[in-house]
């Protein structure tokens, strides 16, 4: 059986792009939220968590209303950037982003909350800018939590199904990620094809975990104790 491998590459692309933005934005958010107190903070917190409790189809519906051709964001993006979200891989990336964000955000917030401000203060006495302190002290010390969040986000991004199907549609060869391939093969009773993709995606998970573990061990000394 020769298989078209495009779903693998598409899934990797979608998950990578989504994880990249999840990473940037959840760190910015967590940092912002951990330093400020404002009215509605809990509400924003809950809002970020919402995609975790809603059925993916409903999230997809929300996204398609927002990012659709007639939607407020969709029409704006189309007009100004010529970017179309619906029925493209960008839509799949946005769906992955939304469902992965809460995973990363919670992990990062927990990691930041645990860091002793003493080290940040030492760095301040040395005249180092807040931004450099963040990059060189806060971030590396929070790294184990951030890494856990990254693993979760990437895996969730790879695995996103319901919302992706809604936003990106199922266009074989164009928006067919691995979970979509599995689902439609399975639903059509093509158990061999479904099993093939389940094996591929499991091998991918195994590869990622092994690589992360290897790499974590290699750099372990850097997060040693004081």
């Amino acid at each position, binding site marked *: 059986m020769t298989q078209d491998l495009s779903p693998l590459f598409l899934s990797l692309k979608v998950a990578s792009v989504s994880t990249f933005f999840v990473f940037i934005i959840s760190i910015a958010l967590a940092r912002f939220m951990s330093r400020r107190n404002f009215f509605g903070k809990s509400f924003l917190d809950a809002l970020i968590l919402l995609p975790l409790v809603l059925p993916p189809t409903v999230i997809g519906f929300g996204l398609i209303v927002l990012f659709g051709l007639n939607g407020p964001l969709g029409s704006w993006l189309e007009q100004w950037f010529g970017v179309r979200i619906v029925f493209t891989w960008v839509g799949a990336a946005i769906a992955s982003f939304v469902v992965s964000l809460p995973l990363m955000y919670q992990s990062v917030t927990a990691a930041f909350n645990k860091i002793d401000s003493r080290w940040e203060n*030492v760095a301040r*006495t*040395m*005249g*180092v800018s807040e931004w450099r302190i963040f990059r060189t002290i806060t971030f*590396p010390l929070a790294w184990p939590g951030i890494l856990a969040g990254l693993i979760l986000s990437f895996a969730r991004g790879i695995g996103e199904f319901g919302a992706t199907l809604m936003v990106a549609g199922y266009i074989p060869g164009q928006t067919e990620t691995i979970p979509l391939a599995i689902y439609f093969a399975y639903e059509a009773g093509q158990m061999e094809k479904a099993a093939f993709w389940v094996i591929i995606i499991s091998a991918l998970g195994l590869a990622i975990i092994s690589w992360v573990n290897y790499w974590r061990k290699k750099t372990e000394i850097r997060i*040693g104790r*004081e």
Partner: protein
Amino acid sequence: MLHVDFRKQLEHFELVVDFQLDNEILALVGSSGSGKTTLLNCIAGIVHPDAGSISLNGRNFFQEGNKPLKIQRRKVGYLFQDYALFPHLSVEQNILYSRPPKSDMAHITAVTKVLGITDLLPKYPHQISGGEKQRVALTRALAAKPDLLLLDEPFSALDDDTRERCQEELLRIHEIWNIPIIFVTHRQADAQKLADRVIRVEKGQMTEQLISEASL
């Protein structure tokens, strides 16, 4: 010239401080829990007084009613009592942390050698001994060429020889930089050897003492 004149309420007493310091070395003595570390923290900007003012060479660090000057802009070298080395950075990275990449390191290399920590540069803080940590922290506090040095018990974990060397080095640096230095100590010998003046803090109340009187 350092002006310090503030009060700060602690749990069991109020810390009241009022002194001025030229480019001298001041020894801060007093029993455990009397407020010495808190005083240094106020000067460094890590905690803030309730009232009063702190200024260095005309720059206002703290002025009642105004926003305190950011820690970053105080240019203070501070050796913390518990060292607070960055656990994820090597000794070398710890020491050079405040230095811009290609800056002049000559004075740091010299200090490193005199303090006997050259061998430790590639190690991480959890791999070195207590006294070694203290010397690394001292070097780190000196590395940024600060306008004011605050040293919280800088020699407590050192043996006689090593302490001797560190003190000589500190005197040499003071000679060159000519900045105010405040250090906390529990040893009379340290105060006698290094200090131009001695201030005693007891339950938050300070008194200036003659060096020879100081029973620490």
